[in-house]
Protein backbone atom coordinates (compact mmCIF):
# COMPACT_ATOMS: atom_id res chain seq x y z
CA UNK A 1 0.00 0.00 0.00
CA UNK A 2 2.82 2.41 0.82
CA UNK A 3 4.22 1.57 -2.60
CA UNK A 4 1.12 2.96 -4.27
CA UNK A 5 1.45 6.25 -2.41
CA UNK A 6 5.07 6.53 -3.55
CA UNK A 7 4.06 5.88 -7.16
CA UNK A 8 1.47 8.67 -7.05
CA UNK A 9 3.98 11.11 -5.57
CA UNK A 10 6.49 10.28 -8.30
CA UNK A 11 3.84 10.89 -10.96
CA UNK A 12 2.90 14.23 -9.43
CA UNK A 13 6.54 15.35 -9.47
CA UNK A 14 6.89 14.37 -13.11
CA UNK A 15 3.73 16.22 -14.15
CA UNK A 16 4.91 19.29 -12.24
CA UNK A 17 8.20 19.27 -14.12
CA UNK A 18 6.35 19.03 -17.46
CA UNK A 19 4.04 21.83 -16.41
CA UNK A 20 7.01 24.11 -15.75
CA UNK A 21 8.27 23.48 -19.29
CA UNK A 22 4.92 24.05 -20.98
CA UNK A 23 4.33 27.19 -18.91
CA UNK A 24 7.71 28.57 -19.96
CA UNK A 25 6.99 27.79 -23.63
CA UNK A 26 3.61 29.48 -23.35
CA UNK A 27 5.15 32.65 -21.96
CA UNK A 28 7.94 32.69 -24.56
CA UNK A 29 5.43 32.25 -27.41
CA UNK A 30 3.20 34.98 -25.97
CA UNK A 31 6.05 37.49 -25.82
CA UNK A 32 7.20 36.64 -29.34
CA UNK A 33 3.74 37.04 -30.91
CA UNK A 34 3.88 40.72 -30.09
CA UNK A 35 7.17 41.00 -31.95
CA UNK A 36 5.82 38.98 -34.88
CA UNK A 37 2.80 41.28 -35.12
CA UNK A 38 5.09 44.30 -35.00
CA UNK A 39 7.05 42.79 -37.91
CA UNK A 40 3.84 42.40 -39.91
CA UNK A 41 3.02 46.03 -39.20
CA UNK A 42 6.55 47.21 -40.03
CA UNK A 43 6.35 45.61 -43.47
CA UNK A 44 3.05 47.24 -44.45
CA UNK A 45 4.44 50.65 -45.57
CA UNK A 46 6.62 48.81 -48.10
CA UNK A 47 3.76 46.63 -49.33
CA UNK A 48 1.47 49.65 -49.58
CA UNK A 49 3.96 51.77 -51.52
CA UNK A 50 4.69 48.85 -53.83
CA UNK A 51 1.00 48.10 -54.46
CA UNK A 52 0.37 51.74 -55.29
CA UNK A 53 3.29 51.90 -57.69
CA UNK A 54 2.40 48.60 -59.36
CA UNK A 55 -1.19 49.67 -59.97
CA UNK A 56 0.03 53.01 -61.34
CA UNK A 57 2.46 51.29 -63.69
CA UNK A 58 0.00 48.56 -64.67
CA UNK A 59 -2.69 51.03 -65.69
CA UNK A 60 -0.16 52.78 -67.95
CA UNK A 61 1.41 49.77 -69.64
CA UNK A 62 0.25 47.27 -72.20
CA UNK A 63 -0.57 44.64 -69.55
CA UNK A 64 1.00 41.75 -71.41
CA UNK A 65 3.78 41.23 -68.91
CA UNK A 66 4.43 37.49 -68.45
CA UNK A 67 3.85 37.74 -64.70
CA UNK A 68 0.29 38.98 -65.14
CA UNK A 69 -0.81 37.11 -68.26
CA UNK A 70 -2.83 34.00 -67.76
CA UNK A 71 -1.33 31.10 -69.70
CA UNK A 72 -3.69 29.28 -72.08
CA UNK A 73 -2.77 25.76 -71.01
CA UNK A 74 -1.47 25.24 -67.52
CA UNK A 75 0.44 22.00 -67.18
CA UNK A 76 2.42 22.41 -63.97
CA UNK A 77 1.37 24.27 -60.87
CA UNK A 78 3.71 25.09 -58.01
CA UNK A 79 2.37 24.89 -54.47
CA UNK A 80 4.36 26.64 -51.75
CA UNK A 81 3.34 25.24 -48.36
CA UNK A 82 4.32 27.24 -45.25
CA UNK A 83 4.55 25.01 -42.17
CA UNK A 84 6.60 25.31 -38.99
CA UNK A 85 10.09 24.10 -38.14
CA UNK A 86 9.17 22.74 -34.75
CA UNK A 87 6.18 20.96 -33.30
CA UNK A 88 4.32 21.58 -30.04
CA UNK A 89 2.09 24.08 -31.79
CA UNK A 90 -1.15 22.12 -31.75
CA UNK A 91 -2.63 21.45 -35.16
CA UNK A 92 -0.82 24.39 -36.81
CA UNK A 93 1.36 22.44 -39.23
CA UNK A 94 -1.12 19.68 -39.94
CA UNK A 95 -3.82 22.23 -40.79
CA UNK A 96 -1.54 23.98 -43.26
CA UNK A 97 -0.45 20.64 -44.73
CA UNK A 98 -4.05 19.46 -45.03
CA UNK A 99 -4.95 22.65 -46.89
CA UNK A 100 -1.97 21.98 -49.16
CA UNK A 101 -3.15 18.41 -49.82
CA UNK A 102 -6.65 19.67 -50.59
CA UNK A 103 -5.29 22.19 -53.09
CA UNK A 104 -2.99 19.59 -54.68
CA UNK A 105 -5.91 17.21 -55.19
CA UNK A 106 -7.95 20.00 -56.73
CA UNK A 107 -5.14 20.93 -59.11
CA UNK A 108 -4.61 17.32 -60.11
CA UNK A 109 -8.30 16.96 -60.87
CA UNK A 110 -7.91 19.89 -63.25
CA UNK A 111 -5.23 17.90 -65.02
CA UNK A 112 -2.27 19.86 -63.70
CA UNK A 113 0.95 18.40 -62.41
CA UNK A 114 1.76 19.62 -58.90
CA UNK A 115 5.27 20.77 -57.99
CA UNK A 116 5.67 21.10 -54.22
CA UNK A 117 7.88 23.80 -52.67
CA UNK A 118 8.12 23.52 -48.90
CA UNK A 119 8.85 25.90 -46.06
CA UNK A 120 9.54 24.46 -42.62
CA UNK A 121 10.93 21.14 -41.38
CA UNK A 122 7.46 19.76 -40.59
CA UNK A 123 6.38 19.95 -44.22
CA UNK A 124 9.69 18.42 -45.34
CA UNK A 125 9.23 15.53 -42.87
CA UNK A 126 5.63 15.03 -44.05
CA UNK A 127 6.76 14.70 -47.67
CA UNK A 128 9.82 12.58 -46.90
CA UNK A 129 7.74 10.13 -44.83
CA UNK A 130 5.47 9.64 -47.83
CA UNK A 131 8.48 9.33 -50.16
CA UNK A 132 7.35 12.14 -52.38
CA UNK A 133 9.72 14.26 -54.37
CA UNK A 134 9.82 18.00 -53.79
CA UNK A 135 11.12 20.84 -55.92
CA UNK A 136 12.73 22.82 -53.13
CA UNK A 137 12.75 23.05 -49.33
CA UNK A 138 13.58 25.89 -47.01
CA UNK A 139 13.79 25.64 -43.23
CA UNK A 140 15.19 27.24 -40.11
CA UNK A 141 13.40 30.59 -40.09
CA UNK A 142 9.67 29.94 -39.80
CA UNK A 143 9.19 31.66 -36.44
CA UNK A 144 11.11 34.82 -37.40
CA UNK A 145 11.48 35.11 -41.17
CA UNK A 146 13.63 37.88 -42.62
CA UNK A 147 13.20 39.56 -45.98
CA UNK A 148 16.25 37.69 -47.30
CA UNK A 149 14.40 34.40 -46.74
CA UNK A 150 11.42 35.66 -48.73
CA UNK A 151 13.72 36.92 -51.48
CA UNK A 152 15.45 33.55 -51.73
CA UNK A 153 12.10 31.79 -52.12
CA UNK A 154 10.79 34.44 -54.50
CA UNK A 155 13.88 34.33 -56.71
CA UNK A 156 13.65 30.55 -57.01
CA UNK A 157 9.94 30.63 -57.83
CA UNK A 158 10.37 33.39 -60.39
CA UNK A 159 13.27 31.53 -61.98
CA UNK A 160 11.16 28.38 -62.30
CA UNK A 161 8.27 30.43 -63.63
CA UNK A 162 10.47 31.87 -66.35
CA UNK A 163 12.00 28.56 -67.49
CA UNK A 164 11.25 26.76 -70.74
CA UNK A 165 8.47 24.20 -70.69
CA UNK A 166 10.98 21.38 -71.29
CA UNK A 167 13.05 22.33 -68.23
CA UNK A 168 10.25 21.98 -65.73
CA UNK A 169 8.54 25.32 -65.94
CA UNK A 170 5.71 26.06 -63.55
CA UNK A 171 2.74 27.87 -65.07
CA UNK A 172 1.02 28.83 -61.84
CA UNK A 173 2.22 29.47 -58.30
CA UNK A 174 -0.01 29.06 -55.27
CA UNK A 175 0.89 29.77 -51.65
CA UNK A 176 -0.66 27.93 -48.72
CA UNK A 177 -0.11 29.81 -45.48
CA UNK A 178 -1.89 30.43 -42.20
CA UNK A 179 -3.50 33.83 -41.96
CA UNK A 180 -3.29 35.54 -38.58
CA UNK A 181 -6.80 36.85 -37.96
CA UNK A 182 -6.35 37.49 -34.25
CA UNK A 183 -4.90 35.80 -31.19
CA UNK A 184 -7.54 33.07 -31.13
CA UNK A 185 -8.26 32.61 -34.83
CA UNK A 186 -5.75 31.64 -37.48
CA UNK A 187 -6.97 30.10 -40.69
CA UNK A 188 -5.09 28.33 -43.45
CA UNK A 189 -5.47 30.19 -46.71
CA UNK A 190 -4.58 29.70 -50.34
CA UNK A 191 -3.56 32.59 -52.54
CA UNK A 192 -2.50 32.50 -56.15
CA UNK A 193 0.77 34.33 -56.43
CA UNK A 194 1.40 34.04 -60.16
CA UNK A 195 0.13 34.87 -62.65
CA UNK A 196 -1.02 37.87 -60.72
CA UNK A 197 -4.52 39.18 -60.86
CA UNK A 198 -4.46 42.66 -62.27
CA UNK A 199 -3.82 44.86 -59.31
CA UNK A 200 -5.81 47.90 -60.36
CA UNK A 201 -8.08 49.21 -57.67
CA UNK A 202 -6.34 47.30 -54.89
CA UNK A 203 -6.13 50.52 -53.00
CA UNK A 204 -8.93 52.83 -54.01
CA UNK A 205 -7.73 56.41 -54.14
CA UNK A 206 -9.35 58.50 -51.45
CA UNK A 207 -11.35 61.62 -52.12
CA UNK A 208 -9.25 64.30 -53.79
CA UNK A 209 -6.32 61.93 -54.10
CA UNK A 210 -6.61 60.88 -57.71
CA UNK A 211 -4.07 58.61 -59.31
CA UNK A 212 -1.46 61.10 -60.55
CA UNK A 213 -0.31 61.05 -64.15
CA UNK A 214 3.17 59.74 -63.59
CA UNK A 215 6.15 60.35 -65.77
CA UNK A 216 7.78 56.93 -66.00
CA UNK A 217 11.48 56.58 -66.07
CA UNK A 218 12.66 54.89 -68.27
CA UNK A 219 9.19 53.65 -69.40
CA UNK A 220 6.00 52.25 -67.91
CA UNK A 221 6.84 48.74 -69.10
CA UNK A 222 10.37 48.90 -67.72
CA UNK A 223 9.09 50.17 -64.39
CA UNK A 224 6.54 47.35 -64.25
CA UNK A 225 9.30 44.91 -65.17
CA UNK A 226 11.35 46.06 -62.18
CA UNK A 227 8.42 46.32 -59.79
CA UNK A 228 6.66 42.99 -60.28
CA UNK A 229 9.46 40.73 -58.94
CA UNK A 230 9.72 42.99 -55.90
CA UNK A 231 5.97 42.82 -55.51
CA UNK A 232 6.11 39.00 -55.61
CA UNK A 233 8.84 38.93 -52.96
CA UNK A 234 6.89 41.32 -50.80
CA UNK A 235 3.79 39.10 -51.06
CA UNK A 236 5.83 36.06 -50.04
CA UNK A 237 7.39 38.01 -47.17
CA UNK A 238 3.94 39.01 -45.95
CA UNK A 239 2.77 35.38 -46.07
CA UNK A 240 5.83 34.24 -44.12
CA UNK A 241 5.27 36.90 -41.48
CA UNK A 242 1.60 35.99 -41.15
CA UNK A 243 2.53 32.34 -40.86
CA UNK A 244 5.12 33.13 -38.17
CA UNK A 245 2.60 35.06 -36.09
CA UNK A 246 0.07 32.24 -36.53
CA UNK A 247 2.62 29.62 -35.54
CA UNK A 248 3.47 31.45 -32.32
CA UNK A 249 -0.20 32.01 -31.51
CA UNK A 250 -0.95 28.32 -32.12
CA UNK A 251 2.00 27.34 -29.94
CA UNK A 252 0.90 29.64 -27.14
CA UNK A 253 -2.59 28.17 -27.18
CA UNK A 254 -1.35 24.60 -27.32
CA UNK A 255 1.01 25.20 -24.41
CA UNK A 256 -1.68 26.93 -22.38
CA UNK A 257 -3.90 23.88 -22.85
CA UNK A 258 -1.04 21.61 -21.84
CA UNK A 259 -0.42 23.66 -18.69
CA UNK A 260 -4.12 23.58 -17.80
CA UNK A 261 -4.22 19.83 -18.35
CA UNK A 262 -1.16 19.39 -16.15
CA UNK A 263 -2.91 21.35 -13.38
CA UNK A 264 -5.94 19.11 -13.72
CA UNK A 265 -3.79 16.00 -13.63
CA UNK A 266 -1.90 17.17 -10.54
CA UNK A 267 -5.19 17.82 -8.75
CA UNK A 268 -6.47 14.37 -9.61
CA UNK A 269 -3.24 12.63 -8.61
CA UNK A 270 -3.10 14.56 -5.33
CA UNK A 271 -6.62 13.32 -4.48
CA UNK A 272 -5.59 9.76 -5.29
CA UNK A 273 -2.41 10.11 -3.23
CA UNK A 274 -4.37 11.48 -0.25
CA UNK A 275 -6.80 8.61 -0.60
CA UNK A 276 -3.98 6.09 -0.62
CA UNK A 277 -2.35 7.71 2.41
CA UNK A 278 -5.64 7.66 4.35
CA UNK A 279 -6.14 4.02 3.38
CA UNK A 280 -2.66 3.24 4.72
CA UNK A 281 -3.46 4.93 8.05
CA UNK A 282 -6.85 3.24 8.34
CA UNK A 283 -5.31 -0.11 7.70
CA UNK A 284 -2.58 0.49 10.26
CA UNK A 285 -5.13 1.50 12.92
CA UNK A 286 -7.30 -1.49 12.25
CA UNK A 287 -4.24 -3.73 12.43
CA UNK A 288 -3.23 -2.23 15.82
CA UNK A 289 -6.78 -2.45 17.19
CA UNK A 290 -7.08 -5.97 15.87
CA UNK A 291 -3.72 -6.87 17.41
CA UNK A 292 -4.64 -5.32 20.76
CA UNK A 293 -7.97 -7.18 20.78
CA UNK A 294 -6.23 -10.44 20.02
CA UNK A 295 -3.72 -9.85 22.83
CA UNK A 296 -6.47 -8.86 25.28
CA UNK A 297 -8.61 -11.90 24.49
CA UNK A 298 -5.52 -14.14 24.71
CA UNK A 299 -4.61 -12.62 28.15
CA UNK A 300 -8.17 -13.05 29.58
CA UNK A 301 -8.15 -16.68 28.54
CA UNK A 302 -4.84 -17.38 30.25
Amino acid at each position, binding site marked *: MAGQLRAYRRQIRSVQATKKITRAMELIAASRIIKAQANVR*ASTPYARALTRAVSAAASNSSLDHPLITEKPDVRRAAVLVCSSDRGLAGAYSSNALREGERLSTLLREEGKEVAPYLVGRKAAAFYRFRRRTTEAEWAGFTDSPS*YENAKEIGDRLLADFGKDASEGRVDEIHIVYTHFVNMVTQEPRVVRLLPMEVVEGVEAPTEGDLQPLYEF*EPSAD*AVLDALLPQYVNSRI*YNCLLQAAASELAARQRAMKNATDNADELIKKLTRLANNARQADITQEISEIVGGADALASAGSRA
Partner: protein
Amino acid sequence: MALQVELVAADRSVWSGDASRVRARTVDGDIGIMSGHEPVLAVLVPGEVVITGSGGDGITAQVSGGFFSVDHDKVTIVAETVEVGAGTSAGTR
Protein backbone atom coordinates in the same frame (compact mmCIF):
# COMPACT_ATOMS: atom_id res chain seq x y z
CA MET B 1 6.20 74.04 -49.21
CA ALA B 2 8.40 71.16 -48.20
CA LEU B 3 8.48 67.67 -49.59
CA GLN B 4 7.06 64.86 -47.51
CA VAL B 5 9.59 62.09 -47.80
CA GLU B 6 9.30 58.48 -46.82
CA LEU B 7 12.23 56.05 -47.13
CA VAL B 8 10.98 52.50 -46.82
CA ALA B 9 12.83 49.18 -46.69
CA ALA B 10 11.14 45.80 -47.03
CA ASP B 11 10.97 45.17 -43.30
CA ARG B 12 10.78 48.66 -41.82
CA SER B 13 10.21 52.30 -42.45
CA VAL B 14 13.69 53.87 -42.36
CA TRP B 15 13.05 57.57 -42.38
CA SER B 16 10.16 59.92 -42.85
CA GLY B 17 9.81 63.62 -42.51
CA ASP B 18 9.93 66.93 -44.32
CA ALA B 19 12.73 67.63 -46.71
CA SER B 20 13.72 70.38 -49.08
CA ARG B 21 15.62 68.24 -51.57
CA VAL B 22 16.00 64.57 -52.49
CA ARG B 23 18.67 63.11 -54.75
CA ALA B 24 18.69 59.55 -56.04
CA ARG B 25 20.26 57.52 -58.83
CA THR B 26 17.84 56.14 -61.43
CA VAL B 27 18.64 53.91 -64.39
CA ASP B 28 18.90 57.06 -66.52
CA GLY B 29 21.19 58.93 -64.17
CA ASP B 30 20.95 61.05 -61.05
CA ILE B 31 17.69 62.83 -60.39
CA GLY B 32 17.11 65.66 -57.99
CA ILE B 33 13.66 66.42 -56.66
CA MET B 34 12.51 69.66 -55.14
CA SER B 35 9.08 70.90 -54.20
CA GLY B 36 6.63 71.19 -57.09
CA HIS B 37 8.15 68.47 -59.23
CA GLU B 38 5.91 66.65 -61.71
CA PRO B 39 4.77 63.12 -60.73
CA VAL B 40 7.53 60.62 -61.49
CA LEU B 41 7.84 56.90 -61.03
CA ALA B 42 11.44 55.87 -61.59
CA VAL B 43 13.48 52.70 -61.20
CA LEU B 44 16.58 53.07 -59.06
CA VAL B 45 19.94 51.40 -59.45
CA PRO B 46 22.02 50.45 -56.40
CA GLY B 47 23.51 53.65 -55.11
CA GLU B 48 23.17 56.58 -52.81
CA VAL B 49 20.01 58.41 -51.82
CA VAL B 50 20.52 61.80 -50.22
CA ILE B 51 17.66 63.50 -48.44
CA THR B 52 18.22 67.04 -47.25
CA GLY B 53 15.77 67.79 -44.50
CA SER B 54 14.09 71.18 -44.26
CA GLY B 55 15.35 71.71 -40.72
CA GLY B 56 18.98 71.02 -41.58
CA ASP B 57 18.58 67.35 -40.72
CA GLY B 58 18.78 64.68 -43.37
CA ILE B 59 19.94 61.25 -44.27
CA THR B 60 22.29 59.56 -46.67
CA ALA B 61 21.52 55.95 -47.39
CA GLN B 62 22.69 53.17 -49.68
CA VAL B 63 19.82 51.43 -51.44
CA SER B 64 19.84 48.15 -53.32
CA GLY B 65 17.84 49.30 -56.29
CA GLY B 66 14.11 49.64 -55.84
CA PHE B 67 12.04 52.54 -57.09
CA PHE B 68 10.93 55.95 -56.18
CA SER B 69 7.77 57.92 -56.74
CA VAL B 70 6.87 61.59 -56.57
CA ASP B 71 3.37 62.95 -56.52
CA HIS B 72 1.96 66.12 -55.01
CA ASP B 73 5.18 66.80 -53.13
CA LYS B 74 5.04 63.35 -51.57
CA VAL B 75 8.18 61.36 -52.24
CA THR B 76 8.33 57.66 -51.53
CA ILE B 77 11.61 55.81 -51.91
CA VAL B 78 11.24 52.05 -51.73
CA ALA B 79 14.09 49.55 -51.72
CA GLU B 80 14.49 45.97 -50.60
CA THR B 81 17.41 46.87 -48.37
CA VAL B 82 18.43 50.28 -47.12
CA GLU B 83 21.71 50.93 -45.35
CA VAL B 84 21.89 54.18 -43.52
CA GLY B 85 25.24 55.86 -44.07
CA ALA B 86 27.11 58.64 -42.34
CA GLY B 87 25.83 62.18 -41.93
CA THR B 88 22.53 61.04 -40.51
CA SER B 89 20.61 62.88 -37.90
CA ALA B 90 17.35 61.66 -36.50
CA GLY B 91 14.30 62.43 -38.59
CA THR B 92 10.79 62.71 -37.35
CA ARG B 93 9.20 59.32 -37.20
